[in-house]
């Protein structure tokens, strides 16, 4: 039997499956160019190993899996997934372009496939997530020639590896370390200045830290801790932080959203605490982050007066993929997700961040 806290964590881990299902649907509709073939590898991995994860049985895993993948996703969900994924990828690309040799640190990235696109001899890519989630990703990589080559895996752990029982799954070490790619199984809420995970992170490289729907599950106090630890860890080296989080706006839609998610056992701990783009920005300011900026996904998508983050041609291509029946609903849903940027007190700064249209900025 799982304790209440274990149950909560199981639900949080299960949100990775939601995100993966959204990315798969989005990819199948042709939103991502070129087509991202790695998504389906992660899906296959989940379908194989979810049954061995904590709190699942063979039966409940296949039910959970069916629930996540069987239903058609509405165009609004595909479009939102595209906007979120592409806006952050744009920033990652520009960061790499500006700094050349740098580091990307993805917090709770789970089954995200962005790492495979950007890891390179110059770009060190690290991912930290719950040990189980890390394991599933590691097994995906070990079981695929292409992915092993991408992350330059030269070990031999994959040879003859065949995980078919819960015991075998439990025995797998979650971490995977190569010369420029690291996956680390760790509960970020436990992060301290002396955590062992820090040894894998190079504090001399300009670093972009990504948090996509991750910090929202941690309390405001845990948010503060996590951000402060990374800020300080990099010291005078640039640390840029991108956070994508839901915000309640303290309106009827937000209240209904909290209610619906609560029914699934999902508690968004920052949802009301930092309910608006203003309060998100203020939070970054209080933490001593500089050059902070914030916008929402409705603005990123071009549904507000600020203008889209994508050129006309791309907007045209996207709008042709699926029929959007309701624009008011899009604005409503997308305005409840914010994209937030800030950087530590380093002498360097990520200049290209000013190229995008932000809703609010502070020093």
């Amino acid at each position: 039997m799982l304790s209440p806290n274990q149950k909560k964590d199981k639900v949080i881990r299960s949100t990775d499956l939601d995100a993966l299902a959204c990315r798969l649907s989005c990819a199948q509709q042709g939103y991502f160019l070129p087509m991202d073939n790695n998504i389906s590898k992660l899906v296959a991995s989940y379908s194989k190993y979810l049954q061995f994860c904590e709190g699942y049985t063979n039966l409940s895993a296949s039910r959970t899996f069916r629930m996540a993948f069987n239903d058609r996703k509405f165009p609004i969900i595909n479009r939102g997934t595209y906007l979120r994924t592409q806006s952050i990828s744009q920033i990652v690309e520009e960061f790499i372009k500006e700094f050349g040799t740098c580091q990307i640190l993805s917090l709770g990235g789970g089954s995200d496939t962005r790492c495979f696109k950007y890891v390179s001899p110059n770009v060190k890519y690290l991912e930290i997530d719950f040990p189980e989630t890390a394991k599933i990703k590691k097994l995906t990589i070990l079981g695929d020639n292409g992915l092993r080559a991408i992350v330059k895996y030269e070990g031999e752990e994959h040879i003859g590896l065949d995980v078919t029982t819960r015991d075998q799954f439990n025995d797998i070490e979650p971490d995977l370390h190569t010369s420029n790619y690291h996956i680390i199984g760790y509960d970020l809420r436990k992060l301290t200045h002396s955590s062992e995970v820090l040894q894998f992170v190079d504090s001399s490289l300009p670093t972009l830290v990504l948090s996509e729907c991750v910090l929202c599950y941690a309390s405001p106090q845990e948010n503060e801790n996590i951000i402060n630890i990374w800020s300080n860890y990099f010291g005078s080296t640039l640390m840029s932080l991108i956070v994508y989080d839901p915000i309640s706006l303290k309106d009827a839609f937000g209240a209904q959203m909290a209610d619906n998610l609560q029914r699934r056992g999902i508690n968004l701990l920052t949802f009301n605490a930092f309910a608006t783009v203003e309060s998100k920005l203020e939070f970054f300011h209080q933490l001593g982050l500089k050059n902070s900026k914030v916008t929402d996904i409705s603005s990123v998508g071009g549904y507000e007066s600020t203008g889209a983050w994508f050129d006309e041609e791309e907007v045209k291509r996207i709008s042709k993929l699926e029929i959007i029946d309701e624009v008011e609903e899009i604005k409503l849903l997308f305005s409840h997700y914010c994209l937030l940027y800030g950087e530590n007190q380093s002498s360097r700064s990520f200049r290209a961040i000013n190229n995008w249209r932000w809703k609010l900025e502070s020093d």
Partner: protein
Amino acid sequence: MLNLDDTIERVKECKLIPERDVEELCNKIIEILIEEGNVQALDTPITICGDIHGQLHDLLTLFKTGGECPSTQYLFLGDFVDRGFYSLESFLLLMALKVRYPDRITLIRGNHETRQITTVYGFYDECLRKYGSVNVWRYCCEVFDYLSLGAMIGGQDGVFCVHGGLSPMIDQIDQIRVINRKQEVPHEGAMCDLLWSDPEDVPSWSISPRGAGFLFGYNEVKKFSHTNGVSLIARAHQLVMEGYKEMFDKRLVTVWSAPNYCYRCGNIASVLAIDNALGRQYKVFEASTNQEISSIPSKKPTIDYFI
């Protein structure tokens, strides 16, 4: 043989209606709709309803709010199906009422009443899930092609009703009357615009972010109303958090009748009662909490967010 009163009661309880009854109901309603004009002339008093979107329980609340049919006369502005989990039951109930009381309820076509949109937005999948085949969906799509495109309430200086809005190709209501409506909704042209357009604060016809229809402003509304002797344009099509929204010196109103749209939006809904003097009374209502009465093996509501 189809027993209408029995069917109405069974649908209200969300019970599965035999496929042959659905087929018979669809055939019967087509016989009625085929006689109706593109723009139905209607008398007051009448209650105008906006989008329903398969929210059967809220549709039942709507009838409690506005009065049961046939004692209250109704006009539904389309978008009966898609999005919600009970599109079929919602449409069956409205069709059964129409066949039972043809002069007390009018249904006009929304942009969702098409083969193409229903395959993307849920109605097709729902029929397939509930019956194991798409026959029922096919029968309903046949009906869609016969639905009127608009209505005129109270004659001269009355209320012009349409699902979406105006079209740059339509100056006079008579131009709507000559459209050959018995077809899948085209991707452009007058018929498409009537079902897809939206009012907006724009100086003239503008491109719609929906990718179909147009945006029209106060100028277009004034011109159309003046030309056609219309005191109010009543339309649906757009989510309004307060249930209704009057615009352009109250010459146009959006009526929205799906509370907590998609079980996600947290909005309230309304219907608009028009009295004999064309006075307006908005009756607002909230989402039903009674989602449990179903005996149909329905989909467990999963409401997607980005998480």
